Structure formats: structure tokens, C-alpha cells
């Protein structure tokens, strides 16, 4: 009898012990179940279609068998053959049918006939819609130049590359990317430690003895994609878990040490940890000597950032800062799982640089159990972006560069800050964006919207098109609304990532006159005359082109129902010479690290007028910067970006998910609540200098008494549960109306990350 590492039986061995071997092996054999049917089926009337879950958007989702009966999607079964989710799924996956058949689905292509915002449309055909958009874009290109068009990016989707490719063919650099999501980290880690890995160097869960969960949520973001299991297994193996986050989410609940940091102060904590490790000489002197640049300057620079200095900023007792710094530096295999939390503060780049410096000087870079530079994934396909089309002229025309122009393009191509290009419509500076396409993104809830600035811009912009599956928060301002298929209603594209590539299969016929996001971009490109760059409109050629590095065609891939799982190569460690000399994606291809060493002192940033070493920058409204506001607004407010059942601003209309989280809640400490006469479950009003929101109080001890937090993205109603939609502005629950957009104080100067912190007061509604 085999014991699993946590001292209990694994499920499989339990099945064997439990005398269920017959059942277990029939399932494992994978051919038929006891009814003589494929194992996923309950009756001969059902069909099992292997594909990807699409409830996190069109992306490399978890592998599923979509079960269809009478042409209808009835349920989802996990795909055991998928190396990602191994047959397991999250609640979203199991609510797919309610999403696909939602009454909120867009029904037809629409053209606006009333005033902006009035919601009066006429029904048109898909072809008319494409014709209308193409005519408008051609007219604007002629009149104002191609840069007048912006496409707003949702969270990274498989179609993101098609959006870039379209803009590149059109000649516009203005891919609107939010400075809040992964790319900021990738960028700063790139220019600090040379790692071009998306999201930065990867924590080695399998071998670490000490795991820091810092500003991330490994449980909700990708629970079934193995992230939850690897965390639980890491803990069960005996690794120490240290969580640095403002609230006690379930991952914090299993941690050995909780560092309940004040939102937005990660840079201050990381600087203080550098101070401890350098002052106490706990660093890896040999690594520092051979592989870092500017250590002496950094050592002198962080002198002032003592744990005592950090205490009033981070809210973390100096002793705890010292403890965790010592544990990190002195544990042989220590890793940091770093998250998007860093990307929600004006000191974003400072926090990432300081964390990169911590990994480097502690000797945890690219060593077993530390943070690794993974090699090229075996299932790497050809990028969709046509980055070779980018010219200096295009870069010069960026309306609001997400990263400094001299450091563009970055991995996704050129980009402007999502919020900044919307702002240009209002300010006309340096020139106004004239046309906006929003595919799968809802700008009124997905970016900062104080005093309704996004709505004002959408009223004013010359042309606005929405491309989505479901009704969106701002579709009433659109000139054209194009309904697209869900990914259950289309057979493309394939998805590839890590060591897995699989074709997508159509589960059901489209429920309306829909085409896919991919068909939208390709058809529009052909209509615009960019067909040469868009496989002359052929999706088969498009997919074959992308699959070419793997030496297979889409037809060959389709013949394998679970795709191809490549063998992972054993990791190679300490690839410093190679990684620290990697070329950057700039036009010059100059290396990320000019000295070929970790940039503890960053000459690249210094040449651009930015600070050569990480510093501390207070959020725009905070006890440090605006103490005068504390009397009226004594609490720090921030928001979460992940939750167990929702994604960003969507899925609230799915009844099975809404039942789990029925109302927008404000997490608050019992002390904070009691002082205001608030009880768990009471409706409360949260006021800031910019507006007010309404939440249900979720009173629990897992949050700092000086901080309150809510989930972002609330506006949708859910008719089946008699929940009506919330206002986008005052009186709703849209956290994006609360924050500053003053670039000088609210934005990070290197990566346009925006502050998600402000000061508020809370009272009973």
C-alpha cells in the first residue's frame, strides 16, 4: 500500500484499497465504461466532444469533454488526458451551459440609430457590419492617419495576437493594454534580471523548501490548471509557506506565516528586506560578485530603507520584516510566487526591481527550488503578431506609450496604456484617438473611470465598435455591435502552451448569426485590403502557418482527440551567461542587460531619466502622502482581481456562479465594523473623494483593521436570481470609479501601472 507524501492515501490507492479496482480501471483504461460507452457518457444519446473550457476566455483552457445531447451542451466532464487539469475543473467550467444559453447573449449584429447611450439600434447582417467598420476605418485612416485607430485589449486571449496583427497591417501602434496585468512584471524583470519569460522567473514549486506567495492568488487564478494542487502538494511535502497579502484568502489560510501588508506597499517591504539581507550580509557573495552590476551602489542606497522605516508604510512590524527576509536569504531552496498585485501601485516597477534584486542577491535565481528561467516550451508555435512590421515611425506615434518609447516594442508588440488612449479622446493630447474597437473588454468597468471619464470619451469618440458574446456595460455607446460565437460554437483556433497542443472542436452549432473573434479580424482585414497579411482569409492556412514550428498541420492535429503532449525536458539550471545576454524585443535587439549581469543599478532606466535603483512612491491617497484626508477617510481601500467564480467584469449573469457569490461584498475586520455599528451582511456605503459605492459587509478577521477591500468588475445583474444590474458610477459597486488617474502621482513612470488604492470612509447604508 502506497502512502502519498502527505501521509494519507492518494485517491487512486484508496480506490484500490476500497475494492473499487474494477471501477477504477475501467475508467482509467479510457476506452469504454460499464455501459460499453466512452467513459464520459451516461447514455447512448450523449456525445462527448473533446475541446477546451472557455470560461476564462478564448485561451489555452482546461481540457474538457463537452457532453452534447440532442444538439445541446448539457454538461462538462474533465479531460483526464490533459496535462493541465488532469480531469479536474473549477466551478466556472461546470457552469458553461448556463453561460452559452444565457438570455444576455447578443442576438444580432446591430447598428446604432439613436443617440450615443440611448440604446437604439437596427438589426443588420454580419456582412453589413464588417462593411460599415471597414468603411469607417478607411475614412479615418485617410483623414487622421492609421494611428487614429485603437484596439482595447482584454486580458490576454488567443485572439490578442490577431488584434496586434490587424493594427500592424493597418499601421497603428495603439494596442491599448492595461498596465495591470502580467506584462508590467515581464517587462521589469526583463530589464532587471534578463528573464524574457512571460510573468517573470518561475517559482519551482516542486523543489522549494520555502515558498513566498506575494501579491498573487495561486488558488483562484487557475485552480484547476494545476496551481492549487501544486501549492497543496508543496505544503504537504513540508515546505514553509509565507504569504504576503492584505487579506487571508484560502492560500494564506494554509501558510505558516502571514505578512498582512497594506495594499500597494510591496515596494517598501521589498526594499526593507534588501536592507536586512545586505546589512546582515546574508547574501550570496559569490553570485553577487560574478553576476550582478551595481551591488555597492544598491547597498548604499538601501541603507535608509530599514525595517523600522517600512513599518508605518507597510503596516508590518519591523521584526516580522526581518524574520521573513532572514528566512528567504538563509533557506537553501526558496522561491517567490509573485503576482499581479505588484502591478496595481505607482511603485510597481520599484517593487518588481526590488523583488528581482532579492532573488538575485539571495542566490535563488535559476537554482533548484528557487525561481527558474524556463527554456522554450516544447509546444511553442509561431506567434500571430507581425512584429517585423513595426517601424520607428509607428513607435513615435504611440498616443500614450505603455512603456517608454525607446523600450518599445515589447513582447506583445507596441502598446499604449489602455486608460491613456481613452483619455486622449477627451484631451486631444498628443492627438485624439478617433476610432476604438473593444473586443471582449468593457472599458467602463475594466479601467479607471473616475467621474465617468470613460463614458464621456465614448460619447465623444468618432467611432466605437463592440465585439462580444454577451451584452456589455457600454454597448449603448457603440456605433456597431457585433455578436461573436462562444468558443463552444467554433472549431478554431487550436491552443498550444507548455508541453500541450490540441485542436478545438465545435460543440454546438452557433445559436445565432455569429462568427468567431478570429473570423472577425480576418474578414475585416481582407475587407480593408490586408488579405496578404491575413492568409488571404483562410483559417486553415492561418493555423497551419502557426503550427509550422511543430511540423504538423491542423488536419493532422485534429486527428488526435486529446492533442499532443510533448515530453518536458529536464531543467537546466544556472543559465546565467545565456539569459543575462538575451536580446530584448526592441527594434535594435539590444540585450536587456547592457552589462550582461543583473541590473541592481539600472543604467537603461537611468538613461531614460528614471531612477537607476528602486525607490518608494506612496499611492496618490494614503496615510503617507495625504494625511490630511485621514480624518474624513481613515481607511485604505483596494480591490481584488481574482475570485473563485468570476472573471473580471463578466460571468455575474451565470446563475450557478452568482449563487456562490450573490452580492458585491466589502471585506472588513470585526473591529472596523464594530466601530461603525456594522454587522456581517449589512449593506454599507463606501465613500472617497471621488465617489461612493455600495457593498454587503463581509466581516471577518482575515483583513487588516485599517483596510477594506472589494472585488472589482461588478455591474451585471442576474435575472434568474432577481438581481438587477448596478450603476456603473456612484451607488454601484464598480471599484474603478474610486481611483486617481493623475499620471504624475497615480501612475508608475516606467510601466504605466495604475494605483488601486485610495482612502475611504465606510458607513451603514
Amino acid at each position, binding site marked *: 500500500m502506497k502512502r502519498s507524501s*502527505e501521509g494519507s492515501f492518494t*485517491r487512486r490507492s484508496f480506490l484500490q484499497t*476500497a475494492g*473499487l479496482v474494477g471501477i477504477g480501471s475501467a475508467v482509467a483504461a479510457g476506452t469504454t465504461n460499464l455501459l460499453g460507452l466512452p467513459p464520459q457518457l451516461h447514455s447512448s444519446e450523449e456525445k462527448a466532444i473533446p475541446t477546451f473550457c472557455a470560461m476564462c476566455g478564448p485561451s489555452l483552457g482546461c481540457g474538457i469533454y463537452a457532453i452534447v445531447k440532442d444538439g445541446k451542451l448539457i454538461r462538462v466532464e474533465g479531460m483526464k488526458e490533459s496535462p493541465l487539469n488532469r*480531469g*479536474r475543473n473549477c*466551478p466556472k467550467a461546470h457552469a458553461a451551459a448556463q453561460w452559452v444559453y444565457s438570455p444576455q447573449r447578443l442576438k444580432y449584429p446591430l447598428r446604432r440609430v439613436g443617440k450615443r447611450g440611448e440604446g437604439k439600434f437596427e438589426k443588420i447582417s454580419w456582412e453589413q457590419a464588417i462593411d460599415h467598420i471597414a468603411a469607417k476605418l478607411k475614412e479615418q485612416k485617410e483623414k487622421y492617419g492609421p494611428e487614429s485607430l485603437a484596439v482595447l485589449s482584454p486580458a490576454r486571449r488567443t485572439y490578442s495576437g490577431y488584434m496586434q496583427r490587424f493594427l500592424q497591417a493597418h499601421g497603428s501602434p495603439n494596442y491599448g493594454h492595461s498596465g495591470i496585468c502580467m506584462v508590467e512584471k515581464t517587462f521589469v524583470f526583463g530589464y532587471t534580471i534578463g528573464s524574457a519569460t512571460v510573468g517573470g522567473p518561475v517559482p519551482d514549486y516542486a523543489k522549494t523548501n520555502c515558498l513566498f506567495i506575494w501579491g498573487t492568488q495561486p488558488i483562484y487564478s487557475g485552480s484547476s490548471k494545476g496551481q492549487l494542487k501544486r501549492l497543496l502538494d508543496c505544503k504537504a511535502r*513540508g515546505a514553509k509557506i509565507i504569504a504576503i497579502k492584505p487579506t487571508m484568502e484560502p492560500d494564506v489560510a494554509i501558510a505558516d506565516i502571514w505578512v498582512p501588508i497594506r495594499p500597494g506597499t510591496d515596494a517598501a517591504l521589498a526594499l526593507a528586506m534588501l536592507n536586512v539581507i545586505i546589512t546582515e550580509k546574508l547574501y550570496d557573495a559569490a553570485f553577487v560578485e560574478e553576476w550582478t552590476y551595481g551591488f555597492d551602489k544598491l547597498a548604499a542606497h538601501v541603507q535608509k530603507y530599514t525595517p523600522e522605516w517600512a513599518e508605518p508604510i507597510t503596516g508590518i512590524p519591523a521584526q516580522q520584516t526581518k524574520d521573513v527576509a532572514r528566512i528567504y536569504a538563509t533557506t537553501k531552496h526558496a522561491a517567490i510566487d509573485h503576482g499581479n498585485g505588484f502591478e496595481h501601485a505607482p511603485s510597481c516597477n520599484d517593487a518588481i526591481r526590488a523583488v528581482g534584486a532579492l532573488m538575485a542577491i539571495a542566490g535563488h535565481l535559476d537554482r533548484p527550488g528557487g525561481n527558474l528561467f524556463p527554456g522554450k516550451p516544447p509546444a511553442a508555435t509561431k506567434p500571430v503578431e507581425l512584429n517585423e512590421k513595426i517601424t520607428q515611425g509607428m513607435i513615435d506615434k504611440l498616443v500614450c506609450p505603455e512603456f517608454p518609447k525607446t523600450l518599445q516594442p515589447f513582447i506583445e508588440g507596441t502598446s499604449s496604456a489602455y486608460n491613456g488612449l481613452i483619455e486622449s479622446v477627451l484631451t486631444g493630447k498628443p492627438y485624439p484617438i478617433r476610432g476604438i474597437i473593444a473586443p471582449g473588454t468593457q472599458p467602463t468597468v475594466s479601467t479607471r473611470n473616475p467621474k465617468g471619464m470613460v463614458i464621456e470619451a465614448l460619447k465623444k469618440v468618432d467611432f466605437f465598435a463592440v465585439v462580444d458574446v454577451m451584452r456589455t456595460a457600454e454597448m449603448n455607446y457603440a456605433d456597431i455591435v457585433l455578436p461573436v460565437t462562444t468558443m463552444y460554437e467554433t472549431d478554431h483556433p487550436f491552443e498550444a502552451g507548455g508541453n500541450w497542443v490540441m485542436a478545438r472542436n465545435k460543440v454546438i452549432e452557433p445559436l445565432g448569426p455569429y462568427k468567431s473573434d478570429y473570423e472577425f479580424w480576418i474578414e475585416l482585414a481582407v475587407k480593408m485590403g490586408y488579405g496578404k497579411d491575413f492568409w488571404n482569409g483562410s483559417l486553415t492556412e492561418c493555423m497551419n502557418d502557426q503550427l509550422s514550428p511543430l511540423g504538423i498541420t491542423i488536419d493532422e492535429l485534429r486527428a488526435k482527440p486529446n492533442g499532443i503532449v510533448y515530453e518536458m525536458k529536464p531543467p537546466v539550471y544556472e543559465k546565467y551567461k545565456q539569459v543575462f545576454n538575451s536580446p530584448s524585443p526592441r527594434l535594435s535587439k539590444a540585450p536587456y542587460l547592457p552589462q550582461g549581469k543583473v541590473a541592481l543599478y539600472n543604467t537603461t532606466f537611468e538613461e531614460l531619466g528614471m531612477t537607476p535603483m528602486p525607490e518608494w512612491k506612496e499611492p496618490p491617497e494614503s496615510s503617507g502622502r495625504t494625511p490630511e484626508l485621514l480624518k474624513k477617510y481613515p481607511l485604505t481601500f483596494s480591490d481584488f482581481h481574482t475570485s473563485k467564480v468570476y472573471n473580471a467584469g463578466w460571468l455575474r449573469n451565470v446563475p*450557478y456562479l452568482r449563487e456562490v457569490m450573490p452580492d458585491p461584498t466589502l471585506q472588513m475586520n470585526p473591529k472596523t465594523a464594530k466601530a461603525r455599528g456594522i454587522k456581517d451582511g449589512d449593506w454599507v456605503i463606501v465613500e472617497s473623494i471621488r465617489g461612493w459605492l455600495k457593498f454587503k459587509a463581509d466581516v471577518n478577521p482575515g483583513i487588516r483593521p485599517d483596510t477594506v477591500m472589494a472585488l472589482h468588475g461588478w455591474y451585471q445583474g442576474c435575472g434568474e436570481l432577481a438581481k438587477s444590474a448596478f450603476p456603473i458610477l456612484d451607488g454601484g459597486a464598480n471599484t474603478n470609479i474610486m481611483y486617481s488617474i493623475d499620471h504624475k502621482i497615480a501612475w508608475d513612470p516606467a510601466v504605466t501601472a495604475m494605483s488601486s488604492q485610495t482612502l475611504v470612509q465606510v458607513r451603514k447604508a
Partner: protein
Amino acid sequence: MAKQMGFYIIAGRCVECHACEVACKELNNVALGIHWRKVQNHWDGEFPNPTNINMSSACMHCRKPACLEVCPTHAITKRAEDGIVVVNQSECIGCRACGSACPYGVPQYGHDSKMQKCNLCLERLENGKEPVCVSTCPGEALGFGPVEEFAKSAAGKLAVRLQGETEPSFFVVGSSIGPKPEVFIDTFFKRL
């Protein structure tokens, strides 16, 4: 003693993700507001040292089901071959006596007023599959099987069986992640 099937949970591996609950509803087409499986969360202590633990549970498939004993129409039965407690809806008159009798709040009532609850995915078991809550759980926290054999197994030796007059078929397995099984049981079942 006849075979008795039951669920177990590994303390600490449940993170309140609700996958089990939603998968159960999806498979069984359970109406809104009705839960055959429930996820619970419990806070204790004070900042900065609070604790937060989670549990997922469904019907306990008791050896001496209180629901069965009080049912006036014998709509609730216990299967001889595996001890699974099932309800025959056509005989249920919706009197809700079972709801009052069950110490675990399991019986649920639909718009037709008839009792409904977890049947351990009988249809799937007969097809050679695991209950959907078990097979989808991303944390691998849930398991099921014949309880006598489980009790004798190595995992069973780390487990504590929930005690109660109805002899529930439910185990909490200890692990290095979560609280001790006794603490877990005390937290979620002490009021019973």
C-alpha cells in the same frame, strides 16, 4: 455487515472553490437555491492570527438514517447492496419530516415540494465512474468508497469518522496541511 458507501474529505485540501457544488448542480440539474452539496467556511481567532478552514459535504448516507425512519410513505430507502440512501420522489408527499429529522440539514425541497438530495451519483457509480464532486475537485480533497474497507486502510487510520446517532458514513482525513480531524469535526459539527 453489509457494504456501506460514504464520502471522505482531507482536512486542509478544501479551499472553498465550490467546484464540487457547481458540478453537482450541473450534473443533476439542481434548481437555483437548492444544494445537494454544500461548501462551508469557518473563521476563528483575531487579526493578525486568524484561522480559516473549509469543508464540503453532502448526504452522509447514514447507517441509521433519521430521514428514513420518519418518512410516513417509505419514500426514502437504503439500498441493501451499498447502503446509499435514495428517495423515490413519486412516493414523497412533501411533508418535510425528513428535513426536521436529519441532523445535517441534507434534505432539500424543490418547486414540486418533493425531497431531493445527493444519491452519491448512483448513475455514475453504475457506469463505473466516481461521483462528480470527487472527480472534479481541483484540490483532490474529496474521496468516496466503502467505509469499512476505508477505515482499515492506511488513509483510514489517519481519519476520524464523524460520530452521531444516525451513524453517518463520513470521514475526515488528517494531513499536514489542515487542522487535526478532531478540530475540523468540532468546528463544523459541534452544534449537533
